[in-house]
């Protein structure tokens, strides 16, 4: 059988009923913030669409993104997403190993139009030697793999913006997928960033579902994130927001304010500058999200969140110690004394050069 199965066919083959399929479509619609009436349209679209080949590349990462993905509940990863796509290469999840695994990737790449998912940043310093798979550097592998790809989804903040590997002082010269494209180091393809450390599982599946349903890149913000999930700041959607507006802030994690659930801004919450869906989608099957558990947002879906100062210092605080201040004060004093001495000698010189003024000086 040469023809790839459509998503619907695949599901039927797996014994998923039509009813269960429509239920999934409704869930996908709500995930994508579409009206429920869109479910039949989604079903129709998915019914026609063949399962695209997906290559998942893991570079400088911690596997947290994969861990997160496997916890997706609204569209569970094993029963649905894997039935919707053909995950041909994922070195954590695939059964094959060694040369067989790499062969799988090469085979998947033979037919153009596959989707590349990347988690982890890509080291570029010293020829990119700091991370390699099967003797191939991440940079080289990404370059090869992107060649015939239809699009790339950067899963997690490392792939999207460099993340922790890129944090100061960035010893490996880590870069995001987008940055490599911008520098011309890898082929340019459409990019969807799904940042987060890790990203919310249902956001990963939601973005994939959107791509599969509509076959196109969703609307993105200026940082390449789908606006349907990243359009609002945590702060805008936070249930503690009224306390911020009233100026009621917890000062420590165990004070009266903390117990009463007041705003965590002063404890370092980065909610006002962080765009993500945590406050609405929530984590662990919709149980809660960090602020609900009493901890401020750390801003993990934003570029350079690791370099934004302490997680526990408020947004109005400096992110780095003011290490130039002492030197500048000393320099100021030194220059000041220098100018003072120069002024003194200028005054002295003027004084000794002064000839007593007489009447003759008045007429000139």
């Amino acid at each position, binding site marked *: 059988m040469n023809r790839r199965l459509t998503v619907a066919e695949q599901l039927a083959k797996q014994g998923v009923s039509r009813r269960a399929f429509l239920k999934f479509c409704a869930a996908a619609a709500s995930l994508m913030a579409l009206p429920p009436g869109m479910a039949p349209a989604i079903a129709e679209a998915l019914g026609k669409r063949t399962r695209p080949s997906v290559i998942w590349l893991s570079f400088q990462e911690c596997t947290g993104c994969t861990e997160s993905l496997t916890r997706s509940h609204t569209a569970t990863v094993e029963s649905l997403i894997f039935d919707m796509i053909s995950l041909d290469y994922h070195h954590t999840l695939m059964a094959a190993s060694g040369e067989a695994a790499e062969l799988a990737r090469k085979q998947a790449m033979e037919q153009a139009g596959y989707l590349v998912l990347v988690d982890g940043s890509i080291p570029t310093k010293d020829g990119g030697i700091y991370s390699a798979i099967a003797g191939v550097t991440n940079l080289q592998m990404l370059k090869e793999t992107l060649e015939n790809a239809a699009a790339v989804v950067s899963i997690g903040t490392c792939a999207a913006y460099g993340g922790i590997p890129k944090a100061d002082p960035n010893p490996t010269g880590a870069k995001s997928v987008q940055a490599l494209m911008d520098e011309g180091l890898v082929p340019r393809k459409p990019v969807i960033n799904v940042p987060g450390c890790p990203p919310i599982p249902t956001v990963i599946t939601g973005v994939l579902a959107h791509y599969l349903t509509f076959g196109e890149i969703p609307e993105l913000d200026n940082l390449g994130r789908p606006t349907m999930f990243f359009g609002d700041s945590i702060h805008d959607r936070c249930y503690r927001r009224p306390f911020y507006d009233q100026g009621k802030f917890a000062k420590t994690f165990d004070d009266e304010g903390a117990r009463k659930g007041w705003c965590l801004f002063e404890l370092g919450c980065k909610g006002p500058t962080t765009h993500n869906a945590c406050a609405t989608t929530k984590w662990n099957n919709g149980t809660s999200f960090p602020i609900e558990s009493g901890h401020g947002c750390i801003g993990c879906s934003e570029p350079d969140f690791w370099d934004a100062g302490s997680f526990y210092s408020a947004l109005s605080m400096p992110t780095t110690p003011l290490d130039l201040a002492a030197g500048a004060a000393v320099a100021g004093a030194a*220059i000041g004394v220098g*100018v003072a001495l120069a002024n003194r000698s*200028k005054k002295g010189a003027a004084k000794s050069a002064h000839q*007593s*003024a*007489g*009447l003759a*000086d*008045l007429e*000139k």
Partner: protein
Amino acid sequence: MRRGLSVLHRAIHKLEPLRRIYEQEYTLLGRLAKMVGLSKPVTDDELEEWKELVYNSCTLCARCSLVCPVGNDIVYMVRKFREGMAVSGHAPEGLIGAVTRTIEIGSPMGVRLPAVQAQMRHVQDETGIEIPLDKEGAEYLVMLSSMEIMNFPEYLSAIAKIMKQAGKTWTLCSTAFEATNAGIQIGVSDLAKVIVKRIVDGAERLKVKTVISPECGHAYTALRWDGANLIGRPFTFKVLHILEVLDEFRAQGLLKTEGFETAKMTFHDPCQLVRRGGVIEQPRNLMKMVVKDFVEMEDPGKYNWCCGGGGGVSANEEAEQLRLEAFKIKKRQLENTGAKTLVTACANCRITLEEGLEHNQMDIPVVGLTEMIAEHLVETPSAKS
């Protein structure tokens, strides 16, 4: 070109070239800017243009220094600026004439000792009191201003009567009778020093305890506050304005007056006496001794407005129109009091006020406080003889 009061005459604007000189010579950024040619140099042409602002439109009255919220001592800076203006040849002709006469003849109006001696004889004949000259060891050395010698001889006779009543010894000095200091007004410290030195030498030669500055504001500040700094050492004698002496006599019961003026009177505070000199309460104490209906002007004491003729302006013909313009403030103040007589304690203010009143056809006599006090002295038989 003559102009009326305009935006140009704002105190701080008068200092613009001086500010640039300060920046270019004494600040790091200014020095750097000058080095790379980014700052505008101060030229002779510019200074000539500023002459009107620095001399004609400033009487050194220091009201700007008093009200500046930032605390800038603007008049101090104008005074400094004049140092440079004068020796670079940008002082007005009238002031150059006054300072030249003071240095060469001994007085800005060209008064010589014989004229003083003639006045002495005149007062002696009129009052019957001997006017001492060069009397060593006298308690007080009395200074005059040429304005008093030429225009207001009443002053000398008033002093004679008051000293007689108080029983104090005093003298005039043949080498130092002129107190006014045009060197300060034109802004040349070296010349101001020559003028002050005459008085210091005279006072030390005659071994007096106190030098009395006449009814002249600038003479007072030049001697009292600038003098020691000009000669570079503290004085060995005290310097008092005549009003300070009179008020001391009053407090000690040595000044006995009788009768009161009946007309409504007000007092014009000379800037140099009050704002720049610190003689504030004394004229009020003295006014109350002899005036029943004494009214204060608006903004009395340290806030008073200048007559318009200070800081060398009265010697500067180019400034005349502006001076009459500035007099409008005085006119308004005066009219608001409804006073019939204007009293002051500075001969220069007095002549400026008289001219201003005449120009505005206002019939208000201007009198000196010292002579008014003298007119009310309790007559003693010996004074009659």
